[in-house]
């Protein structure tokens, strides 16, 4: 193990897409490696996905209603993410 500053260590995340967003993205999830210069937050994940264009840019455009969870807890764009975290991206919930 090295003692490199956290900001220089790539952050590997498990992403989970649910419901309508799973269909729009065409996948139930993936492994995402945040680059060292990406913000280590949910917002940083969104920015990385949005930059892919296509359905990613459409669904994650500013103003679109998107919800997040980190390790099964409700999260927001400013929520920090760490190596190994599970980050879920989904539409507003409609149960009950």
């Amino acid at each position: 193990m090295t003692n490199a500053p956290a900001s220089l260590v790539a952050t590997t995340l498990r992403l989970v897409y649910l419901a309508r967003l799973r269909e729009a993205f065409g996948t139930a999830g993936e492994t995402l490696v945040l680059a060292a210069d990406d913000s280590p937050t949910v917002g940083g994940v969104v920015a990385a996905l949005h930059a892919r264009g296509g359905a990613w840019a459409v669904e994650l455009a500013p103003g679109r209603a998107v919800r997040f969870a980190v390790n099964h807890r409700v999260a927001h764009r400013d929520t920090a993410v760490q190596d190994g975290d599970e980050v879920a991206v989904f539409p507003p919930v409609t149960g009950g």
Partner: protein
Amino acid sequence: MSVRVQTADFDVAREIAALRAGDTGVGAVATFIGTVRDMNDSARIDGMTLEHYPGMTEAALAEIVAEARARFDIRDALVIHRVGVLAPGDQIVLVAVTSAHRGMAFEACRYVMDLLKTRAPFWKKERTPSGERWVEARESDEKAAQRW
């Protein structure tokens, strides 16, 4: 206190009996049962599929029930939410709350449902004559949760 996510239907009478069992301090039981309607947004609904986020769902429901217990003077609470393929008329969700007096049971039951509608990770996909569609979240549900 217990929360369950299951594909199987539930028997309300049996669930209430189990919730009350052994607690003669209970003087009130309030329940809410959500069911599948055959109409929504002017379209006929032939059925729906309920999806959830395993792992988070149970934790979110348990947290909501724990909040209700802290906030209201209740004896016990139960939440059962079904997932999978459902038909019009089917039961979707049961919230049951026991308390000494009716006021707390009514309040806590409504609180759990209002928060469940905006915080528990479930999604409905409806089958209509013109195809399938995801149900959109309602502004009125957000307002109902914020009321608390």
